């Protein structure tokens, strides 16, 4: 009941803001190339849907590849940093520091190195995914409570057994929340990569539409990107709920 009320409240707020937006556009006669009205964005979204989906498929492919590569490298690095203590100590400040590096600034370099195809976007998505995932997983591996491990260590469990019985299941929720953060960031990363130089993808479509003052199409692309982000976040949220942090 309470939950329904809260959802209703949020929906009302959104509807109110949309109405305000729509009203202002109509009242001040704002041209489409400055600010299109929500109704205009919506009709463009429906009309351009085949085109939008066509480009979204490319962006999603980049995100999927970037997420996969970033996650794989992140997992390997986290385990290496965990087991090789000096490496972990050397790597931790680097990992934290590298989160501050604006990937946007590196994107043009990646285009220079990897060309105009999907690979520079994949690289940006992978780099963006890698850091939160590696840090989260390393954190998860390091924070396994000692009393969970010691029972098995005393029984003579070797590292492989400890990994299977304790460490991996204990760190799994951390890995998944890292992946969840990474997935939404990867979407942003791929779009940025497409802004810098691409011939397909939602980012490319936005740049093209922007140059032609088709702001309704820019907004339609933003709307679809938002929906994709929410969908990705929700999908990984379901995965996370299957393996909750039970502590």
């Amino acid at each position, binding site marked *: 009941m309470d939950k329904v009320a809260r959802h209703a409240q949020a929906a009302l707020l959104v509807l109110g803001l949309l109405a305000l937006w729509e009203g202002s556009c109509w009242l001040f006669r704002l041209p489409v190339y400055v600010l299109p009205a929500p109704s205009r964005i919506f009709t463009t979204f429906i009309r351009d849907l085949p085109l939008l989906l066509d480009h979204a498929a490319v962006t999603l492919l980049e995100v999927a590849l970037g997420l996969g590569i970033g996650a794989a490298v992140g997992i390997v690095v986290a385990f290496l940093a965990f087991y090789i203590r000096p490496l972990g100590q050397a790597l931790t400040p680097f990992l934290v520091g590298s989160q501050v590096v604006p990937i946007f600034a590196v994107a043009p370099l990646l285009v220079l190195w990897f060309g105009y195809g999907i690979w520079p976007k994949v690289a940006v998505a992978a780099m963006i995914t890698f850091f939160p995932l590696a840090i989260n997983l390393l954190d998860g591996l390091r924070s396994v409570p000692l*009393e969970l491990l*010691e*029972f*098995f260590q*005393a*029984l003579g469990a070797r590292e492989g057994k400890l990994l299977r*019985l304790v460490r991996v*299941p204990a760190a799994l929720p951390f890995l998944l929340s890292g992946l969840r953060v990474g997935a939404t960031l990867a979407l942003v990363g791929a779009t940025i990569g497409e802004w810098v130089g691409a011939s397909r993808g939602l980012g490319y479509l936005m740049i093209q539409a922007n140059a032609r003052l088709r702001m309704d199409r820019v907004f339609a692309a933003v709307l679809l990107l938002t929906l994709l982000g929410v969908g990705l976040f929700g999908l990984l949220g379901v995965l996370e709920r299957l*393996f909750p942090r039970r502590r």
Partner: protein
Amino acid sequence: MSPAAANTSWPPAEGESSKNALVLREIHVSFPRPDGPFPVLRGFSLAVALGEAVGLVGPSGCGKTTVLRVAAGLLRPERGEVRVRGKPPRGQVAYLPQGDSLLPWRTALGNVLAALEVDGPVSPQARKTALELFSRFGLSGFERSFPRELSGGMRQRVALLRAFLARRELLLLDEPLGALDALTRAALQDWLAEALRFFPRTVVLVTHDVEEALLLCDRVLVLSPRPAQILREIRPATPRPRPRGSPEVQTLRLQVLSALAQQAHGQSG
């Protein structure tokens, strides 16, 4: 304590190393501190005979947990010798650490089976045996419950059952009932006595509860404050488990408490 009872009393005297399940000889342990090493054990020795149950009581922070971790092979002493049935300890000990040691992502049954998985794949037969023991030890209906869904008493039953099913001769228990309320604690003491009858083991039990040690153990050792030394050794004349209200237990309880109090007084004076 009549002499006749003392003569026939079990366990056998120390010294026969072949009959000892656990031997700690001249153990030295210190922890690093910014202001230099901090001694926790200074030449601590202990021998526990095969099948014997020994209780360790002493002031908190005296090093009881350290004794168990050394005996379990989890902490290497700077000096001294650790032998479990004549061999290094690692892999031979079922050690129940203080606090919640159950895996929160596994069910009660899953946790118990995890102890068996250390030694290899679990056969359907072993699984069936584990399930039977759940009902025998008051846990039927909770096989599929996760630890967070169980009461504190139930959780400790699962943790203890897991330690028994691990099939190790030496069982080290660190305050297994420490976090429980008085009523649950008394019930679990009876439960533990029954479990020890069913699974004969050599036990070292660390506890704050003097009565608990006297109910369940063949021998109770009173430890000094850090670095721990054995102050007194008490061997009740009657075999364990002893009835809660027995005059023997009450008399010995007072003896142990006065030994602890004297030590505390001596330290503060």
